[in-house]
């Protein structure tokens, strides 16, 4: 099992828009694209000299979203293929540019035999998004590479691929811990309840990574569903649950459901060792 810290890091990295990361802190705003002179980079990318191309890819990656016009040239490099280091640099550059059209070029690379290349591809797809990325993540969830599976689960949650929930449950039951957060992001009340049914079977730190997005959705789930979740946590009644609910209590939005808040407030003292 991957440590929870890496899981949370992955979520923090790849889920910039989720409620989980947004709620306790101020929502980050996307910085405006800086003005970059793309012409010299373009020339480097077209060069016949591999070293010059490599430098061009580094520059393109540094340009970030502003380098989007360079994407077709970089996609061309990947379509023809190069060496694994160049492929990886090209993939990272496309990931930095976050152009949805790049997803179709990146997709085959999640099955590359070189682990660094396929992992770079699955990370980049988290930024380029789109239907091709979702399809790639669904494939990635089934692969032999644990990191690809983890990033794929996160990606599916991030991209709102609700139809992937059955697969995410299969992944979660096979120790893909990142699937918990993805399920938390995507689940409808019945699936959220099914997720809560894993309490006691799956590590609590993994489960909380799914409960957070359930409890703190931007568009909240029905009160009844959330109260059920709190009830499930209360039934488990461990000191960890008490600590977690106290944390949830402290973060509960002022304009959040009063009934859910009440359920949390009454659950905490009922747990042995919980706050009175």
């Amino acid at each position, binding site marked *: 099992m991957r440590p929870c810290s890496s899981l949370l890091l992955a979520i923090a990295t790849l889920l910039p828009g989720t409620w989980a990361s947004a709620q306790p802190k101020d929502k980050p705003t996307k910085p405006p694209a800086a003005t970059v002179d793309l012409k010299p980079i373009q020339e480097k990318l077209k060069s016949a000299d591999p070293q010059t191309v490599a430098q061009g890819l580094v520059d393109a990656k540094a340009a970030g979203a502003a380098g989007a016009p360079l994407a077709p040239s970089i996609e061309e490099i990947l379509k*023809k293929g190069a060496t694994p280091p160049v*492929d990886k640099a090209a993939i990272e550059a496309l990931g930095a540019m976050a152009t949805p059209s790049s997803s179709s070029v990146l997709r085959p690379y999640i099955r590359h*035999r*070189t682990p660094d290349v396929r992992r770079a591809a699955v990370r980049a797809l988290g930024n380029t998004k789109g239907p091709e990325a979702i399809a790639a993540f669904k494939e990635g*969830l*089934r692969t032999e*590479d644990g990191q690809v599976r983890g990033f794929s689960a996160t990606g599916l949650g991030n991209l709102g691929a609700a139809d992937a929930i059955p*697969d995410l449950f299969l992944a979660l039951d096979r120790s893909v811990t990142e699937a918990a957060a993805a399920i938390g992001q995507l689940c409808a009340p019945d699936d959220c309840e099914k997720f809560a049914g894993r309490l006691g079977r799956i590590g609590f730190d993994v489960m909380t990574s799914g409960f957070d997005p359930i409890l703190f959705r931007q568009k909240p789930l029905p009160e009844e569903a959330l109260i059920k979740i709190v009830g499930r946590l209360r039934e488990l009644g461990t000191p960890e649950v008490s600590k977690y609910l106290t944390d949830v209590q402290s973060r509960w939005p002022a304009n959040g459901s009063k009934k859910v808040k009440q359920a949390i407030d009454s659950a905490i003292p009922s747990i042995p060792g919980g706050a009175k």
Partner: protein
Amino acid sequence: MITRGGALLALALSIAAGCGGGQTQGAAFDEGWTNDNGAGIGAFQQRFAQTKVPVGADVAIGVVDKQTIVGAPLDGGAPWTYSHQLDGRPAVAGTVVVGLGAGELFALDAKSGKPIWKRNAGGLLRGAGDDGKTTVVSLMSTTGRGTTVLAVSHEGEVVRQVEDEAAIGVPAVVDGYAFLPWQGQYVTVYDLVEGKEAARVLLRTQVSRAFTEGGAIFFGEAGVTRLDDQIRLGPANKASTVTLPARELPGSPRWLPPGIDIPPVQSGAHDKIRLYARPAASGAPSIEGGRFAATYFRIAVGFDAQSGAIGWAYAHDADFLDGAAYAGGFALCDQKGNVTLLDAKSGGVAGKIALGKPLSSCVVQADGLTKAPVTGGPGLAEQLSKVVMMPEAEHVMIQKLLLREMAGLQDELVTKTLIDLASNPLTPPMLLEDSRKSLAARRNGVEYMLAALQKHYDFLTDVLRPPPVGPLADALAAMKEKRAAPLLGSHLNDPADTLDDAQRTAAALVQLAEKGETTALTVFFAHYRGAADDEMTTNAVVSTAQALVKLGASDVVAGALKDPYTSETVRTRISSIVKTPDKPKSGDGTQKKPEPEKKPAEKKPSEAKAGDKN
């Protein structure tokens, strides 16, 4: 006229009356004996020829623990239980079970378990013979050297006690004559009435056991020699001796274990790895029914007694501990306390007898037993398939052998089994390699092959070992099976398949690919033409280049020739298969066909794993 049986009874009665006697030492086992070239045993055999050899009970007895024996007749009578301390494994002979423990030797009726006699005795039990009136027991002395042979009447009287320094093996007794094998080469015919050696046979095959079966007397260990009119030729190694054909079997199983060994209460590997055969009681020396069987833990295999070819295989649910061959089959007793009767010809189950308790060891005797032939069961391919798929690790050695035999059968089921073995993550490496090799050589079972290729590694559905894509690619390409092309195309870029699989898939696509595979080939070529730093990847890239050229995508390959990212090894090899514009044309103005690339040789599947290209 006083019969020998009557004389023996009289001797027993005189001993009972306290007249003493019956104790003999030495002479019968004189090592200074001069070889009489079979004259003595020949004369004895002529006198003895008309003596009827009684048929023994058909019974299995099991040792549950060091003080419990269970037994059951093989013809379906009620099972029985008897409690007595045991210092070793009991023996079954004739109509009795003989056991020894806590200084007491005892005999039970084999069919009912009822006590027949008990006597004080020391040492350890080697074995026993019985003719329905007298039981002869060979006991190793407590010092571990020398033997005590006791002849005890069913009335419980010691008819004769023989003590000698020789290690005397498992005896037989018929009509007052005890047959005592010793020193690995002699069988002394001992006259229990007279208390002296009546004759001696010298055999040239290892001998430590005497036994009766089917109305004849046999001596054996390495082979089995019948007491018949040829016995006089024993010293010249021309007696009626039968041996089993030498054939490769793991664990070096024996037909007859050494008769001077003391069988322990607890069975060991030598009991589980055994051979069983029934020597013919008359006619030319041979194996009755033409079949012998081997057990290897939970597996039983039937062989042709002349050629050694496999006739059947049987997968069981418990280790076999002992058995016996009967006319037309084999009775095999297992650790769970069941006896399974297997038909000698088909390996089909002819019957089952339950002893009722799990066993530490077992002893089976089948003499007059017969069962109706069992026909119409699964064929050899199906039987072997079941056996080679057994998951227990201890079977690997025999499974390897049976897999090789199975691969020689032209049955589509064999192809399926080979695919299943090669796809199962639990298959031991020794079998995996063989199954892949055999699969590549198959030329039937196409539908099974295509179905297998539809599967991929799938973490979510627990398909944790991909199908054997490389061997399937070899086989399907050899059969020119075009339907395989899209399936192979889908595997070409699957990193869960080994590099060996990838190179063989690519090689197959050179023959089988059609337009639909262009994308898969192009992707592979793009991804690895600059990454090929090993032979297998290079082979695969070159094969995809060949396939692309064949499909009219020469431009892709030609472009790679000029591209700085293409590895030098790849560039060198693909330069000969693509026609660059500046290359000269052949005399007739047409472009020369690319030289066919050499098909990669069969590689071991363990050579490279997916994802190891760091």
